[in-house]
């Protein structure tokens, strides 16, 4: 049998190939390239093998940043997901208040990130800020520029304010899409509100919640702008997260090699954790 060869189809793949190459592969490979070389300027590079990676893993400072990052993300997820779900459950399903609630919820998401940082920076100032003064007036000593606990409290509060809405909107969309018949069926069975939540709403929200957790995990793990504006990573390095550490290394020290190795490890952590999350949550779906 004669087989006709027609390779024209490759031309159709070319645009996608180019786009992927330029927006993902080329930049990534540049970073990989830096991560295994040493440079002293003059555009001269020397092979350095895995030395930057070894240094990175031995670096106490980076380990501390990673630890802070994990704690921050965990805290933020444990607050935002249940809180967002609760708010979504409390929101009205029909009537004029729906649009009011949706707009109120969407507002924090529309504020530019550095503005969020400045807003909370000013608001939490102990002498002139609304929040800072109020807390101090209640007799609690609060100064986020000096006290690490206060700084953490402010950073977490800011992130909750900024991003819980995303969880709310995702969950709300999931809730609205549950047909009324489910609630009626549960009502006929005499199911209590808790059972309705446990056996209807939660399973129906599974996919939406997975997406919400993934998005919030990735975003909070990469947090930079808001924190750098609010605390600059301080006091000391109390709120110095991975991205802040990375920027200080890459731009401040201009250590291209270590910064590139750092970027790759950072990227892999996020990729692996996201994959793990997703696989675990979708585990039952497969069989």
């Amino acid at each position, binding site marked *: 049998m004669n087989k006709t060869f027609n390779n024209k189809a490759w031309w159709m793949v070319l645009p996608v190939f180019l786009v992927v190459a330029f927006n993902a592969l080329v930049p990534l490979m540049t970073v990989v390239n830096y991560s295994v070389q040493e440079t002293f300027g003059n555009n001269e590079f020397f092979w350095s093998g895995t030395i930057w990676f070894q240094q990175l893993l031995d670096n106490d400072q980076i380990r501390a940043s990673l630890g802070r990052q994990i704690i921050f993300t965990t805290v933020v997820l444990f607050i935002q997901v249940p809180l967002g779900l609760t708010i979504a459950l409390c929101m009205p399903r029909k009537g004029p208040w729906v649009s009011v609630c949706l707009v109120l919820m969407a507002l924090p998401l529309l504020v530019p990130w550095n503005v969020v940082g400045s807003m909370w920076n000013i608001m939490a100032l102990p002498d002139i800020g609304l929040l800072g003064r109020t807390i101090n007036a209640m007799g609690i000593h609060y100064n986020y520029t000096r006290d690490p606990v206060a700084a953490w409290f402010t950073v977490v509060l800011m992130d909750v304010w900024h991003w819980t809405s995303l969880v709310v909107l995702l969950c709300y969309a999931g809730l609205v899409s549950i*047909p009324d*018949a*489910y609630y*009626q*069926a549960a*009502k*006929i*069975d*005499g*199911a209590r509100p808790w059972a309705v939540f446990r*056996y*209807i709403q*939660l*399973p*129906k929200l599974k996919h939406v919640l997975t997406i919400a957790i993934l998005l919030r995990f990735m975003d909070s793990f990469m947090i930079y702008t808001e924190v750098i504006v609010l605390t600059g990573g301080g006091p000391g390095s109390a709120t110095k997260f991975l991205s802040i550490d990375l920027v200080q290394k890459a731009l401040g020290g201009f250590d291209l090699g270590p910064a590139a190795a750092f970027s790759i490890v950072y990227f892999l952590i996020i990729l692996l954790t996201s994959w793990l999350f997703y696989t675990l949550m979708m585990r039952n779906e497969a069989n």
Partner: protein
Amino acid sequence: MTLELKNVSKRVGADMHIHDTSLVFDDNSFNILLGATRAGKTTLMQLMAGIQKPTTGAIWHRGKDVTHVPVQRRNVSMVYQQFINYPMLSVFENIASPLRVTGMAESEVKSRVGRAAEILRLTPMLDRKPAELSGGQQQRTAIARAIVKDSDLIFLDEPLANLDYKLREELRDELPKLFSGRNAIVFYATTEPHEALLFGNKTLTMHQGRITQFGPTAEIYRKPNSLTSARVFSDPPINIARVTKKGKKLQLSHGNVSWPVAAGAAKLPDGDYSIGLQPHYVLPQKSSQTSGALSGRVLVTEISGSESVVHIDVGGQTWVSQSHGVHPHQVGETATFHADVSRALFFDAAGKLVS
């Protein structure tokens, strides 16, 4: 031992979903609610079940006013058009769910679920989750939930609408058997007239929130009390024509057609009427039954296996003929059909059946 609706109506905002309605349903009866989408079938069911409260009127069940008794204390079951099951629970637990709240003993639950599963051929699937079942099995699970407890009222809201053809036929055969011999009033909502004819029993025709007729199914089909009922209960749509009766002649308003008046309508006073003639009384061949001819241009022909449906244009109005056998017609050609005029239903100007 009945369910009684006394002047029940339902208004939502400015819309009347159900107009003033009084009805009595017998115990152990199978009642079909027939009407187009948005005719009010679901609302009427939800009112009777107690999921919605009527705006006016009262609902009595077995001699007691239950208007304000919430649905969970009324002992009802409901099956929906969508396949509604608890996604996380196994088929067994799904079927058992209505029994769980009653605090029934585990052995009794097991035997009841086992019986329901057997009737609906779900026994091999009891350990599976609803998502792992086919559409037909999911709906059978929902139906099993409805029959597992001894409900007083069972509501089936277009339960077969989302199933494919074969499964629909299958369940259609099974359903009446399932629900006969239960000490319950069963309601079955559907948009399809032939489904109602298949189930027989009693039918309630609905149109725009009003009950147009309620009675034995065959009787309503043969003698609808109004033009509206006739329209609701015919598929393909009943032929409706304006006519003038003059002595022994019947002059159609269109196409210069005139027919002899059949014996049944001879006593009617002369004047204008609307006649309704089911498509299967308009046939392609002349016979001893037919007495009126009808010529027109063929618009559409649908031949499905053993049946032919032909639409013809008679002086600007469409007539539909439905006959057994394959009767090919070319679209555009002129054809003559023969009507069994004695089967024509006569309606007065207000749309009421007069003969």
